[in-house]
């Protein structure tokens, strides 16, 4: 997957987790959790969905790398 595809995937997942927000307005470096008011349950659902759609293993220790869209794109395109 390209970084752009990953970014779109992340945005799609975020809009289903937080439907009343507008993730497409997120800046790449912004903390997703702060910007969209994502709690730990939402974040876990985000990780679960990323894992299920990309089949990439995401250890818990790597969660902090997924706090921004840039981070998600970098991590999952490795």
């Amino acid at each position, binding site marked *: 997957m390209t970084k752009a595809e990953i970014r779109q995937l992340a945005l799609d997942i975020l809009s289903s987790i937080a439907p*009343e927000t507008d993730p497409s307005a997120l800046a790449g470096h912004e903390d997703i959790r*702060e910007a969209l008011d994502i709690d730990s349950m939402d974040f876990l*659902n985000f990780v679960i969905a990323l894992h299920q759609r990309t089949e990439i293993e995401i250890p818990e220790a790597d969660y902090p790398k997924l706090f921004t869209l840039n981070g998600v794109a970098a991590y999952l395109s490795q």
Partner: protein
Amino acid sequence: MSDFLMPSLGADMERGKLVEWLVKPGSKVRKGDVIAIVETHKGAFEVDIFQEGVIADLCAVEGQEVPVGAVLARLAPSDKAPALGTLRAPANPVAAEKAPEVALAAPPSPEALSASGKPAKVAQKVSPMGPGSRAHAKVTPAARRRAAELGIDPYTLKGTGIDDSVTFADVERASASHVGPEAPAGPTRPGRGFDPLQMRQAIAAAMSRSKREIPHYYLTTTIDMGPSLSWLETFNTERLPDQRLLPATLFLKATALALREVPQLNGFWENGRFRPGSGIHIGWAVSLRGGGLIAPAVHDVDTMTLPELMIALRDLVARARGGGLRSSEMTNPSFTVTSLGERGADCVIGVIYPPQVATLGFGRISVRPWVTGGKVTARPIVVSSLSADHRASDGHAGGLFLAAVDRLLQEPLKL
């Protein structure tokens, strides 16, 4: 023949609007089946039935406002079902609580934990209700409303929401593909199942009553989360994301086991006396992004394993936020837990949700200096805070309870 009544989905509910019937006369129903969608000022709820039988008659029409306790449907015993007594519909929280043996959903089966571990498996407890039933397709209330506006049947759409539920966005997309790209864009901040204004009023009513009637006392204890978190880290390392646990599950289970030890905190203050809860059904406070909060029950928390609890919690939070809470989850929590999560404040001093007699809060887990064996070390700690009704218990009982929660969290293996 027995009557199924409009349930009370909170101390402040007087009436509910019957939005949709999911059964018709002749439908066979089983305990736990969702038979209708009812909307209150707190949003839309799935009304589940507590008895097996055949729907004989629907006594309310879709769109009708029905007072709490009024007859919604009549139920005839099914041919093969053993003759049961009078249907114990939750006409009010008291009745619901007094009929717990029929009101409770079973804990998820072990199979539910295998494979993907998705919370959808928990939802599948809701049995199919025969041909024409649409109960297993999940449609969020906002999506249902928007679909009605657009004249689309939301049950024909493919859901992309949590657990494949059909969301507002799915309906919008379907609408756009029907009428072409020229269609005006939908609102960017669609409403949810909860009307913020009415939710505010519901909270105002319940919290005012609490502060007016309940003489609260407050106790806090700071707990070392080191043992729990290291156990959790090991547990999660070996598992895929959908099988991992959050600290919230440990908080809930420790609370439930501590309530077994101090049962005078688990129940209700009614008519000038304490009535113990019939099981440990813990209301889990879920904050809603649009504002407001709701605390539906996880049933029989003390009997669940941590993975079962995690599945139940994920399912409950998804339904609290997306719509689809069941009436049994609103009628009978006997205690409430608030966990502020990783971005919250250090400590919360909660307000008791009447007629419950206590609520426990957990602040954010943060690393702080901690003295152990005469040395200062950095440990992850959490402040637990109990608010309890002084009419029902005294500070001594509250102290024992917090000590039990602390002790239980030091031995996560036993949770």
